[in-house]
């Protein structure tokens, strides 16, 4: 699909429920062949936005257009040929094989009996194949793990063969390998088939890596952009900043802010530096901050063995592991400070 095709646009969209408006004046555009991640805090309305875009929930104001046609003017069947969804709803029915569930994706194309044509069967096989659920095809949904079931539901959405796929938190409840597997699959789909994927997620680090576009949803509205732009402009930091959370520009991840007043100077290179920094921050030290450091830690790498030199005042301790370093670091007496009132 041409990368410039516009699949979906919203115009002054307001979403929410009759007693609670979640967001308004949302103007968005989804292009062909891009992967968009929708990020936002719990309760900010990510699922509601997804459901509104999919036509499952009425908008409070404004409209959603699918390939130029207002969504509410599309017949259920036509809409189902444009948008497929993977929801967080747990599918309780187990007496269906994975193959049968994937084949349901062909419903918008089949007759009243749901009989599959040869072409339909080919699409089902393709969806099963590309999602890697071939070994599960004959097993009942009931016997599948959460990750396997999620893949089957994604295969079902693919079998629906729509230009736009909406996934509501597809990686939640999944372990890391499964999460990466699904994300890699989506990335590949976007690249190979030119489909557009919109997924909501809480995994910021993941979203930053894979998304062509980020949609950041917050209480004031929604901001869209290329992930790197949003990082560099500080938008991500603003949206997610909460007490004690610090966005690390260099790693693209959030860190717990040092909660103490203690500061330490750290010198070193490579992974040893990064991981020592993490350990010290966990202990409540600010690293290389403006405050006068309590101590200095130097990481030395001699003949493949790492050692840490802890210098306080005149004394120097020689540590061979992070554990040892932490024990000594915590024995450093704090400088006398004015007593804070409680």
């Amino acid at each position, binding site marked *: 699909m041409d990368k410039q095709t516009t699949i979906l646009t919203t115009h002054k969209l307001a979403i929410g429920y009759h007693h609670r408006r979640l967001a308004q004046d949302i103007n968005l555009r989804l292009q062909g062949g891009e992967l968009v991640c929708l990020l936002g805090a719990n309760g900010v309305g990510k699922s509601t936005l997804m459901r509104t875009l999919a036509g499952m929930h009425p908008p409070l104001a404004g409209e959603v257009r699918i390939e130029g046609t207002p969504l509410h003017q599309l017949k259920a069947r036509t809409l*189902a040929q444009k948008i497929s969804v993977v929801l967080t709803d747990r599918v309780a029915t187990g*007496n269906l094989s994975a*193959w049968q569930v994937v084949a349901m994706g062909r*419903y918008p194309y089949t007759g009243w009996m749901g009989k599959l044509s040869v072409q339909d069967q080919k699409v089902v096989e393709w969806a099963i194949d590309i999602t890697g659920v071939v070994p599960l095809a004959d097993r009942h949904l009931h016997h599948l793990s959460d990750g396997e079931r999620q893949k089957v539901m994604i295969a079902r959405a693919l079998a629906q063969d729509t230009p736009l796929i909406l996934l509501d938190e597809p990686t939640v409840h999944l372990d890391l390998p499964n999460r990466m597997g699904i994300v890699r699959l989506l990335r590949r789909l976007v690249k190979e088939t030119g489909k557009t994927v919109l997924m909501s997620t809480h995994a910021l680090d993941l979203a930053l890596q894979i998304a062509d576009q980020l949609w950041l949803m917050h209480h004031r509205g929604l901001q869209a952009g290329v992930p790197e732009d949003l990082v560099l402009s500080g938008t991500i930091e603003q949206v997610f900043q909460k007490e004690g959370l610090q966005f690390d520009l260099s790693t693209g991840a959030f860190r717990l802010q040092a909660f103490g007043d203690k500061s330490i100077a750290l010198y070193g290179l490579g992974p040893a530096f990064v991981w020592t920094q993490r350990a010290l921050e966990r202990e409540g030290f600010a690293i290389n901050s403006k405050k006068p450091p309590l101590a200095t830690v130097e990481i030395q790498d001699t003949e493949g063995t790492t050692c840490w030199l802890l210098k306080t005042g005149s004394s120097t301790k020689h540590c061979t592991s992070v554990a040892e370093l932490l024990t000594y670091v915590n024995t450093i007496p704090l400088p006398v400070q004015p007593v804070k009132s409680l």
Partner: protein
Amino acid sequence: MITQTKPVKTRTRSYTLIVSGLCLAVLAFFVLDLAMGSVRIPWMEVVQILSGKTAGEPAWQPIILKLRLPKAITAVLAGAALSVGGLQMQTLFRNPLAGPSVLGVTAGASLGVAAVMLTTGGMTTLYAVRQLGLAGGWVVILAGSLGAATVLLLILAISFKVSDNVVLLIVGIMLGNVTLSLVSIWQYFSQPEQLKDYLLWTFGSLGGVTLTHLKVLLPVVGTGLVLAFFSSKWLNGLLLGENYARSMGLPINRARTLVILTTSLLAGSVTGFCGPIGFIGIAVPHLTRALLNTADHRILIPCTCLVGALTMLVCDLVAQWPGSSLTLPINAITALIGSPVVIWIIISRNNLRASFG
């Protein structure tokens, strides 16, 4: 690609075996049901009478054709109708305990029949209604179906406001309770003779349906079953939940309306004629799922018909205890012999959970 489609084909083949087995069983029990009773008639004679030849004993012919044949056909129709109605309710409400009797379908039918039997005095007692033949058949069937449909239309109207099926189910149960208390109050103020007729009706009976009545019951149940079969794709879609079903382009509201109307047609008409027959509507869908190990309604609906008919025939055989002239109320028998069977199957096969998570 070709190897992948194979499992589907093999599955179809195994169904043909089960379906033909069920058909044979229904046929065998149908003939057995005709042969058994206070007068025992040999198998071969039954087959001969059915094929239009004269029987060895002249009295056998009217017994078979006038009494037992309508009853056996009614058993088949009632079994199929109640079972399919139950299957549809269970799928629509995604609840293993749903059946035609929840949602007030049976209660509504009871109210309709009670209205006919308890209000207008002697002329419209059950006996009188049956004497009226076809017209009378319409009175009971209309009363039962209208009662069921009234309650269901009420629920349908509410269903457009309430999108949650569990809430809808509770509303249905509550409406059923209200309807039944209306019937209770009605009974309280009725004459003993009227009350007796109504109470007899609540025991359930397959024997009261004549060949003329079947001319009404058969097309109504037939229409209901055909409509149910036509909704199998929608029912399959509903298995994934309403949101998924909608996302796959299924017209949810139309599907819900069709399913509720079909059930009221099936359960309402059968209840009108045979009285409220319990158990079948809840149990047979479970038996069928256990037997087939699938949730695909395209095969489940025909097989539920067959299993329902079979169960009803077996219950009828037990009700007219072989060798005695006594006929027990069918409503008691269905639950009495059916429930242990269901408990056994559910415990041994353990796929109730597979169907309803």
